């Protein structure tokens, strides 16, 4: 499989100046709102520690909790299915739908169904799949995957949405008023809620103690998807389990504050048992999670509650856009999850980071994201998955950094180079650092030259 070239893929987005400026600003705004919310709660840091500890305990006892969840879900009258991988998940969903003669499925946003590539699987078998979240619907109509796990169309401007909607649901191509666009999608979607024979959601949490599926949304589309049709399917990654209802307090208090900087989502819905006269099916999906649980350095990524705070704060994500990662999960959390699905295909992603650690410091479940990024780089270089240019550069850098003499010579030469080299030698295809930025002005002296001139002389005088 072809390696995803993040730098190359992002270059198109970077060229769209209005888009990238807005993208950067919008996500940074979410980050700042998150800061205000977290500072408002004196127990914020304690909540993070609790969330991390609850998740680690649950993952360390996941087998027992999964069985407890299944037992309670069955007792509630739900049916429970287990899917080893994406293909099995899709087949199970299709079998449930076709045995109920379902032609239209309304669904709320689920990263898991995107991960499994479920939509094309069902559509090619004659089932119409309607994404009912506005952002996810925009992406579905534009034949693009979501570019962000919380705000799927954040890379688009209103004019892009006007273009997509005018070509697909018949809005006025010249009208890019946001209220008009959102209202048009609402009106277009309503009949689907009324005619769909089945509804689907993902899960933010699954509670072992009660067998409940918990879904956090703002639009009300999940509650419409579940509460109208007679058939409800919940697709759940096995890492979504929390032991008890009271643990939800910890996670729900942090999820939307971390994601959007709002105290809570407009709706936090708990589906424990089917409505009278209806069916509820829960599909528990592994798809590589059990394997990841056994990776000593990387199992912590399973604590993730998909808030997207690490994406909003990441300077590389904000300035390259989610689609350039070429994977379901983008940004810092994607960088540490994606290589577990396919090391070669996603081997460039751990290099799409400055290692500034901002992701780690905003993570509500204290995943050591930037340390894992660094460790993935080690794994990738050990397994010989580095691209040629990066490998050469690293070997030279390794030699230079290991020898003080070579290092001094190189630093002095670089300073002189920056001063005197013509522009075309600094800003060309071979020097990745010169591509989107001006190289800073070199100081007149290197630090060592400065030190020898000033401090060393003073010390000699004493």
């Amino acid at each position, binding site marked *: 499989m072809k390696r995803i070239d993040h730098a190359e893929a992002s270059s198109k987005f970077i060229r769209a100046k209005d888009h990238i400026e807005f993208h950067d600003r919008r996500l940074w705004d979410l980050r700042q709102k998150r800061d205000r919310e977290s500072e408002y709660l004196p127990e914020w840091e304690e909540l993070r520690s609790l969330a991390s500890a609850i998740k680690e305990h649950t993952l360390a006892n996941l087998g027992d909790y999964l069985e407890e969840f299944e037992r309670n879900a069955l007792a509630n009258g739900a049916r429970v299915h287990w899917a080893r991988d994406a293909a099995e998940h899709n087949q199970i969903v299709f079998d449930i739908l076709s045995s109920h003669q379902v032609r239209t499925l309304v669904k709320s946003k689920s990263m898991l169904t995107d991960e499994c590539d479920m939509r094309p699987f069902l559509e090619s078998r004659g089932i119409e799949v309607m994404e009912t979240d506005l952002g996810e619907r925009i992406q579905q109509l534009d034949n693009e995957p979501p570019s962000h796990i919380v705000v799927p169309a954040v890379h688009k401007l209103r004019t892009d949405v006007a273009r997509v909607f005018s070509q697909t649901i018949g809005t006025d191509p010249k009208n890019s008023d946001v209220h008009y666009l959102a209202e048009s999608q609402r009106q277009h979607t309503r009949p689907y809620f009324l005619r769909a024979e089945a509804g689907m959601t993902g899960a933010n949490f699954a509670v072992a103690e009660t067998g409940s599926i918990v879904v956090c949304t703002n639009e009300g589309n999940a509650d419409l998807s579940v509460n109208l049709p007679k058939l409800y399917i919940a697709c759940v990654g096995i890492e979504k389990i929390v032991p008890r209802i009271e643990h939800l307090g910890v996670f729900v208090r942090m999820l939307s504050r971390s994601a959007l900087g709002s105290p809570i989502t407009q*709706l936090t819905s708990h589906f424990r048992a089917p409505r009278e006269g209806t069916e509820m099916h829960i599909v528990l999906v592994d798809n590589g999670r059990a394997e990841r649980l*056994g990776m000593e350095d990387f199992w912590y990524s399973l604590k993730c509650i998909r808030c997207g705070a690490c994406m909003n704060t990441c300077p590389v994500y904000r300035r390259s856009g989610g689609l350039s990662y070429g994977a379901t999960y983008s940004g810092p959390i994607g960088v540490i999850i994606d290589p577990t699905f396919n090391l070669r295909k996603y081997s460039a992603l751990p290099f799409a980071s400055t290692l500034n650690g901002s992701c780690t410091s905003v993570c509500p479940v204290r995943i050591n994201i930037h340390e894992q990024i660094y460790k993935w780089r080690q794994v990738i270089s050990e397994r010989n998955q580095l691209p040629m240019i990066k490998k050469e550069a690293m070997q030279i850098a390794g030699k230079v950094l290991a020898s003080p003499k070579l290092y001094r010579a190189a630093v002095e030469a670089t300073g002189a180079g920056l001063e005197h080299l013509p522009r075309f030698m600094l800003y060309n295809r071979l020097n990745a650092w010169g591509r989107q930025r001006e190289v800073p002005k070199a100081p007149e002296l290197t630090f060592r030259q400065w030190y020898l001139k000033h401090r060393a002389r003073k010390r000699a005088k004493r």
Partner: protein
Amino acid sequence: MSGRDEILTRVRANQPASRPLPEVPTFDQETPASIDAFKAALVRMGGKIVEAPADSHLDALIRRLFPDANVICSAAPEVKGNRPIDTIRTPHELEDVDVGVVRALFGVAETGSLWLSEAQYRINAIGFLVQHLVVLLDPDALVTNMHRAYRHKAFFTARYAVFMTGPSATADIEGVLIHGAQGIRTLTVVLDRPR
């Protein structure tokens, strides 16, 4: 081996060493369950607050709040409306309802959330398919924060339970806040002690 057993076997083989499950405090020693906090939080999330009228005539109040409403359907016995909920056979029939009315079990001061389940909704879709929702709330039925809220025993019996915090909303296009994305366009909470 079945998929189930294979997954469980793989999970157990790979589980890291066990570690303790922490106790979760309620973090509410210094915060009373204040109605003012509830109001501020709900308004911030796009909800409206109305005090119950002195004459306690809720039907008239709702008429005044929604003068253009044709169909009013109430799941709360205190409000009559003009579409008796008992006559509704499938949730889809609520589609033409302008105003739905329901009484919440309790509210959460921290977030301005309302707790609702099938016991309150009677038909769950009344919380989402109607255009506007009026929720009656006893101002004394408040808990401090989400930790208290999640200790409520009603979670163990409700088939479906939801914290509703303001109307349906989206900011998926350029971050512009829109109320009434797919669900209710407005949420009005009437502070009303049950009689």
